[in-house]
């Protein structure tokens, strides 16, 4: 590869910003010691075999902390794939490109306690061309942890929302404060594992018997208005909607579709309460409905959900969306771009983009061929778009809930 090599980091003549140590655990500690002497700013220790393996590993991890205490060197890991920053091109993951894709530039900051899950999720989101502002795998967090990563994304100019996968929390009090502060500026989504009930609490207390870790964690997230994801798909779905759209001023949603069934199903899911809350169906005025009538076939529905039927075209979408954007009875719009009828094609992205400049828009496109192309184009336009009714609706609910939290607690 014609790269210049040195026998040790200390023999590199210039200053070193970042060292990635790919040696096994014991040798990694030796290389860290050299890096500290060299005053390397950041060190990523890839190897496992530390605190996750037992007492010997715990001692090695303690050596990491001892070595950097009071120095300028900060450590990411051990047991980490490191970081990915598409805006600078830095990628420390040692995964070959023929196995996994890496996302390009985007607005969602991604921090993960698990390396492999992080890599797989990043590979998945490239399917529709989603990008990220950065990925940080905190691993065993011997030094830098979730709060440091969160605060990095807080000040990073490219980041508009933060998503995090966590298995445990290192410092609940500080985490609570950071989450509360950051979430007001940049919405945060958390997926935390370990939901099964903890049985070690004193049964002496009724409250204690009810207080599973998961319930307490869920309550705390609500208290700081942080969105909760229950799986890895939701995590990135919600990160996207919160990064791309401003929260709506209320919960009244207009739905526009070219398939009656999709509209009815959306109504059912949107108005039923689940873990992500509920929204309301907007009621249009008679004048608005009369105006919409001009752009649709006589048998189309201009009551919410609006069904343009098989005649629905890009032009009709544009005209109807214009009315919805101006309506004082509509806070947000779900627009489906469904490929089963002849007049819907990639041009649909344009009226949705125009509408999204004035009101929050979440889009859905169901199907395989044209639908996937539409989803990719919408992603380029930063319209959050999803390949199913349930994912589209969940994203809208999350956006509404965040808006409601900010209305209630924004001034605290």
């Amino acid at each position, binding site marked *: 590869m014609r790269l210049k090599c040195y026998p040790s980091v200390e023999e590199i003549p210039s200053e070193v910003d970042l060292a990635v140590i790919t040696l096994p655990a014991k040798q990694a500690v030796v290389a860290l010691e050299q890096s500290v002497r060299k005053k390397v700013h950041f060190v990523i220790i890839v190897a496992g075999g530390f605190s996750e393996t037992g007492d010997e590993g715990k001692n090695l991890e303690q050596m990491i902390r001892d070595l950097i205490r009071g120095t300028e060197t900060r450590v990411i890991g051990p047991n980490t794939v490191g970081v990915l920053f598409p805006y600078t091109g830095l990628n420390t993951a040692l995964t070959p490109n023929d196995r996994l894709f890496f996302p390009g530039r985007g607005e969602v900051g991604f921090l993960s306690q698990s390396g492999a899950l992080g890599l797989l999720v990043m590979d998945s989101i490239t399917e529709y061309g989603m990008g990220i502002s950065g990925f940080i795998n905190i691993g065993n967090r011997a030094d830098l942890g979730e709060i440091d990563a969160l605060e990095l994304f807080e000040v990073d100019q490219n980041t508009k929302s933060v998503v995090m996968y966590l298995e445990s929390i290192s410092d*609940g009090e500080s985490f609570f404060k950071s989450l509360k502060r950051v979430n007001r500026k940049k919405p945060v989504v958390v997926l935390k594992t370990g939901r099964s009930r903890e049985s070690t609490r004193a049964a002496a*207390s*009724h409250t204690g018997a009810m*207080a599973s*870790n998961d*319930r307490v964690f869920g*309550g705390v997230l609500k*208290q700081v208005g942080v969105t909760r994801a229950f799986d890895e798909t939701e995590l990135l779905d919600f990160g996207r909607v919160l990064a791309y759209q401003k929260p709506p001023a209320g919960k009244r949603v207009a739905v526009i579709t070219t398939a009656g069934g999709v509209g009815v199903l959306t109504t059912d899911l949107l108005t039923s309460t689940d873990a992500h809350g509920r929204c309301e169906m907007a009621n249009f005025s008679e004048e608005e409905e009369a105006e919409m009538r001009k752009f649709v076939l006589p048998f189309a529905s201009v009551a919410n959900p609006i069904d343009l039927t098989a005649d629905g075209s890009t032009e009709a979408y544009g005209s109807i969306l214009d009315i919805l954007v101006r309506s004082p009875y509509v806070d947000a719009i779900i627009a489906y771009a469904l490929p089963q009828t002849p007049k819907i094609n990639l041009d649909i992205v344009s009226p949705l983009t125009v509408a999204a400049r004035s009101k929050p828009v979440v889009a859905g496109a169901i199907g395989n061929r044209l639908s996937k192309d539409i989803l990719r184009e919408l992603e380029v336009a930063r319209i959050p778009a999803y390949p199913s009714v349930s994912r589209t609706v969940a994203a809208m609910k999350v956006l509404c809930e965040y808006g409601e939290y900010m209305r*209630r*607690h924004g001034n605290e």
Partner: protein
Amino acid sequence: MSEAKQVSMLEKDAKELLSKHGITVPRSIMSRDLPDSSGLHFPVVLKVSDDSILHKTDVGGVVLNIGSREALEKEFKAMKLKFPQSAYLVEEMAPPGVEFIIGIIKDRDFGNVIMLGSGGIFTELYEDVSFRKVPISSSDATEMISEIASRRFCHGFRGKKVNCDSLVELLLNISRIVESNLYPIYSIDLNPVIASEKGVIVADAKILLANTI
């Protein structure tokens, strides 16, 4: 966290603490012998008062709904036979209402957390509870109520209505007591809290103090 044992406050002391902070508890007297006139209105509740007994109901240490002086004398005698070494608490019975549970526990990650739940058997049957980290704001308290099924009583349900402003006040009050660090509180169980249109009354209170010695 240390493994220090906690000490249970006597129910009478726990309720005095709450009362000092403006929380409504039933009028009561505590005694080893039944006084000639208690000054309490019937019906009353008779409870054994002994810091070695945490679950009074489980050992037959609670008699509810005693309607007359004669009945009270009879129950008092029986209680003395069962727990000869203890003192006894006679309390006015809280008027009927909707039952809630409010509690405090120390969470490993987040420290003191407060819980509100639908009371009685529904707490555990439906696990209908809501948690927040202490201290809470008044909108936090309102949102806790909105998360449990019994929120419907705030606007009236099946002829029962609850003054939910007083429920919010109680939650805030408990949060403030814990946050003040005036007492080394380890955990609190207010169960039941009985709520009606007139307000809320704490019918039973268990407070564990961290043993600071």
